[in-house]
C-alpha cells in the first residue's frame, strides 16, 4: 500500500511523477500536502483499501507519513 500511496501522492497530488517519498518523510509539516490534497488522499485510500475513514480519524498522527498511514489502514482493515 505504501508504494501505491507514494505513487498517488507524487503523480496525482504533486504533479511530479518522479518525486520519491520516503516512508518516514513528514507529509504535513513540510508543506508537501495541503488541506485539499489530504481530502483527495482520504478518498483515494477509502476506495483502494475499501474502508470508511471517519473525519475524526483524519489526524496528524494517522497521516504524518506513509508509514503512519499504512499502520492506520492495517489497523482498520478486516
Amino acid at each position, binding site marked *: 500500500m505504501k508504494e501505491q500511496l507514494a505513487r498517488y501522492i507524487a503523480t496525482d497530488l504533486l504533479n511530479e511523477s518522479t518525486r520519491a517519498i520516503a516512508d518516514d518523510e513528514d507529509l*504535513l509539516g513540510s508543506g508537501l500536502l495541503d*488541506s485539499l490534497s489530504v481530502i483527495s488522499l482520504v478518498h483515494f485510500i477509502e476506495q483502494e483499501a475499501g474502508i470508511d475513514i471517519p473525519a475524526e480519524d483524519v*489526524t496528524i498522527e494517522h497521516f504524518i507519513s506513509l508509514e503512519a498511514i499504512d499502520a492506520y489502514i492495517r489497523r482498520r482493515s478486516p
Partner: protein
Amino acid sequence: MLYLLPHAVDRAAMRAPDRDAIRYGDAALTYAMLAERSDRLAGLLRSEGVRRGDRVGIHAGKGLAAAVALYGAMKAGAAYVPLDPASPPARQAFIVRDCGIRHVVTEPARASALRLLLAEGVPVECAIGVADTDLGVRTLSWSDVDAHPPAVHDPDLVEMDLAYILYTSGSTGTPKGVMHSHRSALAFARVAADTYGFRGDDRLSNHAPLHFDLSTMDYFSSALAGATTVIIPDAHTRMPASYAALIEKERLTVLYAVPLALTHLLLHGAIDKRDLSSVRWVLFGGEPFPTRHLRALMAALPNAQFSNVYGPTEVNGVTYWIVPPLPDDDTPIPIGSPYANVEVRIVGDDDDAVVEGETGELLVRTPTMMRGYWGRPDLDARAFWKRPVFGHFEDVYHRTGDLVRRRDDGLLEFHGRKDRQVKARGYRIELDEVEVVMGSHDAVESAAAFAVPDEDGSVHIEGAVTLRSGRHLTVEELRAHLAISLPRYAIPERIAILEAMPRGSTGKIDRRELARRARERTLTVERM
C-alpha cells in the same frame, strides 16, 4: 506612551508578566520572557550593526523563535521582513536583494534551507539562530542571543518609521513589498482590538503565516490586549480534525482564518465530537465565505459571534460585518461598513463618485494605510489617489482596485477586481505574474493564466501555453520551471499545452474561453 508595536509587549510584560504571550505546541513564552528575549535579540542585532530603518529577514517558520525575531528586529530599530519558508529560494532571494536584507534571524531546523538561500548569492552578512559556522556568513546561535545584554532603551524611532514589509504577488513577474509603519500597524491593531473587545483572558489563534497580513492582528491586537496568541502549527492547518482538537485543548476564544480553512473545519473537523464552546469570535477574511457553509458553521458554534473582515494588505482593515442570523438562501454576504476612523469613496472610471447604488472602485482613507511599496514609486503613483476632496489640500486615499457597491441598507458588497488579481484559496495572486513566469521558459511562445471556480466556493488557477515552432516541452518540465520562482500555491493546478490560443476579434488571448473549457475539462494537452 505606546506608539511602537513592541511597546505593546513591554506594557503587557509590566502588567501581566507571567501570562502566556505566545504558545506553540507544548512550549510557551510569557510576556516577561518575550519582552526579555526580544530585548536581548535587539541588543545583539545592534551589536551586529543593525541601525534604524534597516530590514531584518525572518527566516523561520511559525513558532516561538519567529515571534521573538519580529519583536527583536523592531526593537533594534529595523523593519521585519518575513521570508515565506515554503516559497522557492529564488523568490526569497529576490526579496532579500530587493530590500537589501543584511541580517536574518533563523532557527536550527532551517539551516539547510538557509544554505539554499545563501547559495543564490544574496547580500546577507549575518545569520542569527544557527550554530553552523560553514555557511559563509557570520553566524550566531540562540544561546548567543540569550547571553547578550538586552538593548536598554528605545531605538529612537518615531511612529512613522517602518515596522514591517510584507511581500505580495506583483503583476510584472516579481513580488512587491508593502511597507507598514508602526503608526499604520498600531492603528489597525487598536481598531481590531476595540471592535472585537479583546481582553487579557482571550486566547487568539494564529493561523496565517507571518508573510500574510492576517498574522498582524493575531500578534499585535493580542499584545495590545495583553492576551495569549496560540500559534496553529502548519500540520494542524492541513488537518481539520487535529485543528478542532487543538481549539478544544487550548480553549481558544478567537479564531481568525481564511474561509476555506473554516469550511474545512466545518466539513472535515468532526466538530460535533468536540467541545468548542470557548470560542467567542470567529473572524474570517481574504476571500468570500460561501453563505451556506458560514450558516452551517454558525449553527455548529452557537456561542460564537462571527465577523467578516475585509481589507487589502495595503490598508490593513477597511470594513467589517458582524454576521446576524442568516436567511435560508445563498445570497453572498456583504463586506459590511467601514471601521471607526476609516473613510471610503466609491468612484467610476472618471474618478468621480458613482451614483448611489452603482458599482465602482473602492478608495480608502485611513490611518491604517501603508507607507507605499518598497522601492517602487511607479506603483505608489497608481496606489495613492491624491485630491483636494475637501477643498484645501491634498487628501490621500488608497486605490484598492476592488470593485464594490453600496446596498440600500448602506452595507458594502464586494464585486471582484478591476485588474487580474485573484484570491485563490485565500492566497493573493496576480495572474499576470504567473503568465510572465510561464512565458519566461524559452520554449513557450504565449502563455495564459486564469481562475477557475472550485466546488467549495473558492477558485484555483489553471494555465495554458503554446510552444515555439520546433520546440518540445512537457507539462512536468514547465512545472519545474515555474517552481523555481513561484510559490506552490501560485503554480497552475492544470496546464494545457495547446496548438493555438483562442483569441478574440482584436487578437487578444480569450482567457474567458480558456476558463470555460477548463471548467468543462475540455482543455487538454494537444502537443508536447
